[in-house]
Structure formats: C-alpha cells, structure tokens
C-alpha cells in the first residue's frame, strides 16, 4: 500500500473514533499530509540543536526521530487523538510536563 493510502486510512480511523462519519475530503487529506511533513521536519531540525549539549546525544536522537518517521509514518492522526479535549488527558499531560520540567531542572542546572 502506498504512503498516501496509509494516511487516508489513518484519517478514516481517527474520524471513526470521532464518530463524525464524514467522507475524507481533499482538504483534510492534504492538510494532514502538510501537518505530518511540518511536524517531522521541524522536530528533526529541533533535535539537531541537541549538539549544544552533546554530539552523541544529537546523533542518537536524530536517528531515533528518523526511524520513527519511517516506521510509524502517519504520526499526525495519533497526535491529534492524543491532544484531544478530554479533561483527563489534559490533566495527565499537564502532570507529566510538571514532572519533566522539575526533573530536568536538576539535571540541567548541573550539566548546562
């Protein structure tokens, strides 16, 4: 199956999850593709900035992101499903972020 079909399938899955039952329009498909490409390219470029901390970390991270990009291709439908408007998932991500920020601070202030 070509990449385009995979993406259309994924969009359909997400729409079934939303129970909207609308046909996949060309606008929806092209904007999902654009979002996908934007997401991957900007994350790849952002990951290169890890070179300010350590080159090895940067190489590992770039390879990781690239492999995710190849093997888990339509990321955007998943991202959309994760960033939904449900209160419980919002609180979950919030507390996760709180944990990450506070933990990183101890690591970061020692290493940066």
């Amino acid at each position, binding site marked *: 199956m070509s990449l385009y079909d995979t993406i259309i399938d994924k969009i359909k899955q997400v729409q079934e999850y939303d129970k909207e039952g*609308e046909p996949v*329009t060309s*606008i*929806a498909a092209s*904007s*999902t593709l*654009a*979002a996908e490409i*934007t*997401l991957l*390219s*900007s*994350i790849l*470029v*952002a990951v*290169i*900035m890890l070179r*300010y901390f350590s080159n090895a970390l940067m190489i590992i991270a770039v390879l990781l992101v690239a492999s995710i990009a190849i093997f888990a291709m339509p990321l*955007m439908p998943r*991202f*959309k499903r994760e*960033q*939904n*408007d449900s*209160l419980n998932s*919002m*609180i979950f*991500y*919030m*507390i*996760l*972020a*709180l944990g990450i*920020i*506070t933990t*990183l*601070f*101890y690591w*970061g*202030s020692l290493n*940066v």
Partner: protein
Amino acid sequence: MNPLIALMVIIPITCALLVNLFHTKDKTVKILSIVVALFLPIIPLFTSYGLHYFGGYMTLAQSPVLSQWVPASITNSALNIFHMGIMYSFGSAQQIFIVALGIIAFLAILTSLSETKKASGVYAFLMFMGVASMSAVILTDDIFNFYVFFEIIAIAQVGIVIASKVKGNLEAALKYMIIGGIASPLLLLGIALLLGVTGNVNITDIVYSIKTGLVNPQSPVLLMACALIIFGWSYAAGLPPFHTIKSEIYSRALPHGAALLQAFSVFTLAAVGIVILRIFSYLAFSKVIIIALSLAAMILSITMALMQTDFKRIIGYLAVGELGYIGLGLGIGTSMSITAGLFQAVNEAIITAFLFIGFGTVLYLTKESDIRKLGGMMVHTPKIALLVLLAGLAMAGVPPLNAFQSKLMLIQSSLNAGIPELGIIMILLSIVTFMTFMKAFYAIYMRSKPKGLKISNSKIPKATIFSLVVFLIICIMLGLFPQIVTNYLQPLATSLI
C-alpha cells in the same frame, strides 16, 4: 510618585463596577464603556515614567521618619534598601504594552457593543476587569501582587467564556478552571519558595538578593522555584501542555471576547517572561527550558491548527503557536532577540485580535463557524474579505506588515546567537501558518456557497469595520516604522541581560 500610574488599574476597575451599577440602563452603559475604553490607550501616553509606591512608603533609606525608630542592626543591613510595600514600575516597555492592550480592549469593547444587543450585563464588566488586572500584571513589581491579578485575569477569562452563548462554553470553562486549579497553586508554590529563600516578594529586591550573594544562587530551592514558575508561566500563556485548553477557550468565546482573551495571554507571556529572565537569567538552563517550551508550542499548535475544521479553533491554535516566537525571543536571551520577542508580542496581540474580529464577521452573519459548512462569503463581504486576507498576511510575516519586522529581527538574532536551527524552524512554521490561514480563508471566502448555508441580510456594524481598519493601519505603521515600538522596548531588553 505619579498618581497616573495607579489610575491605569483603578479606572478600568471603577468602570467595571459602574457598569454593574447601571445594569439594565443600556444607553448609559454603552456611553460609559466607550468613553472609558477610549481613555485606556490614552492614559499611558500621558503618564511619565517612574515608580508608584502603594501606602507611600518606599524604602527605609528613603524614609528618614521611619528609619529613626528602627534599630541600627536593621538600617545597616540590606533591609535598609528593601521596598516596604507593593510597587508599580512604569517604563517605556510597559507604556507600549499598555497602549497596545488599551487599543485592543477599546476596539474589542466597541465591537462587542455594536454586534450584540445587550449592552449591560456581566460581559462588559468582565472585559474591564480583565483589562485592569492585565495592566496591573504588566505594571507590578511585586511577584505576589502579580499572582493575585493573574488569578483575577483567569476568572475574568472564564467569565467571558461563560457569558458567551457558544456551544460547549460551560464545559470548556470548567476544564480551564480545573486545570487552573492545579497549575496556579503550583505557581504560588514557586513564588512561596522564592519568598522562603529571599524573604521578599519584591522582584527588584529578589534580584538584588541573588545578584549580591545575600542568598546562595545555586540553592536547589531556587531551582525548584524556577521550575514551578516556568510551569505556571506556561499555564498563563498557553504553552504546551496547555495549548489544547487555551485554544479551546478562545474558540468557545465570542470573537471580540477571544480577541481580548488572546491579548491577555500574550501580555501575560511577555510580563512573566520578563520576570523569569530578571530573576533567573543566571541559570543558563532556564533559557533552554523556555526555548524548548516555545518550540513545542510552535510545532504542536501549528500542526494541530492544520487539522482543525472550526475557524475559531484554527485561529486559536495559530495564536498559541505564534506565542512560541515570543518565547524564542526571550529564550535566546540577547538584547536584540528580547527586543524582537517583545515586539512580536505587541504585533501578535494586535494581529490575532484583527483576525478574530475579522473572522468574527462570518460568525455574525451566519452563526456558523465550521469551515466545512461555510463558503461563498466573498460575494457578501468583499471588503471584509480583503481586510481578513491582509490580517492573515500580517500574521505570516509578509512585508510591509508588522510581524515581518519582528520575525526578521528574531531570525537575525537567532543567527547572530549561533543557533541557525531556530531561524529555520521559524521560517518553516511561518509558511505553514500562512498555509493554515489560507485553508480557512479559501473554505470560507473563495469556494462556492454550500446549499444549506443561511447568510443573514443584516449589515456588518460600522464599528466592526472601523476596528478592522484601525488594526490594519497599526499593522502597516509598525511594519514601515518598527522603531516606533522597538526604541521603547530596547531599554528593558538591555537591562535584562
């Protein structure tokens, strides 16, 4: 002492109370609101720079009457120069912020009064209350006072959403309050840790204590305080993980309300960002976290904006995404980048308000905000379509409009700072921003009208068109002469590094 500084907060609060007092007297409320709103951007123009001390007490060193009663062990210590009461400081940067806030508030209030029939009610009250608190947040030099007004803004924001009769507004409001109920005590905890280490809530004094070594700057308590305050900052501004709820809040308010809500977020982001830089700029890692959060905001929000089908939600996500640019400017941490970031804050507040009110005309005519059900609006409102298109161009950073100048400055400063990746991401996401905007613009204005769509025949109020034109003039003015703003922001940016 300059009484006008305090008046910037007192006048909107008084007006808010009077609006409540004259409830059901629509005409009085209308005239009062418009007159006071007109004064909002004018007062800061005539206020001279300086400090305002509430209670009249400055420092022990400056109050000989008090200091003669105090033992020498205190007057000889740093306590002698610590400030005793709440202090407002008004400089050129604060002036620009409050003028921009005042203009947006005036135009939002004017539009809301002309687009809705009920002039009196809680809506105008909440708008004025929010503006007053926002001015206080910009002005205050006291971190606890800042927290208090920050909470009032949060309640005013929720109130504006509750007062709008948009589908799903109550759910969004409750979610925002619950999330705020977790995030703001944690911000308070961060402030409490600062208070515990330095014994002070005045930002100038905290900075003095840290810089002169009265407290140990590497103390882990300060690190925790910084982490918690940055977390609270991301809640206040809507950086991830709060971008979903923030964009939802925008989309569940009426367009004129949303225009004001996003201005609150933008200026809170700038004001708190300045506080964080002032206190914690010695921690190199705080800037890394700011850059990381801003990048996450840009990438996640702009890609999410592409996936939405509701135009208010699209602009909401774009507004949150654009906040990332301001954060990047603050995070790069050079004088030029901070100036550019603050300039971008002023621009973005104006442009997003422009977009919200511009697209709001569609909602006004059709009562519909789903872009899949809209179309053919170009035939009905060609002039508004042009204005909205210009707003979109401004947001994407097309010359000669204002965001071009600030984004250019941001990209240049990222190159000068030796982080070209940030410049690349900024350009990339600007293009995607424009694409997202064009998607909504095409669906609403350019494609043929769907069958089921009912467009009411009522005319767009003149006040709305006036607001849009004023926003456009400001965008062009700042685009051609960015020095009008940057010269005012430069001193603050230089003092931060």
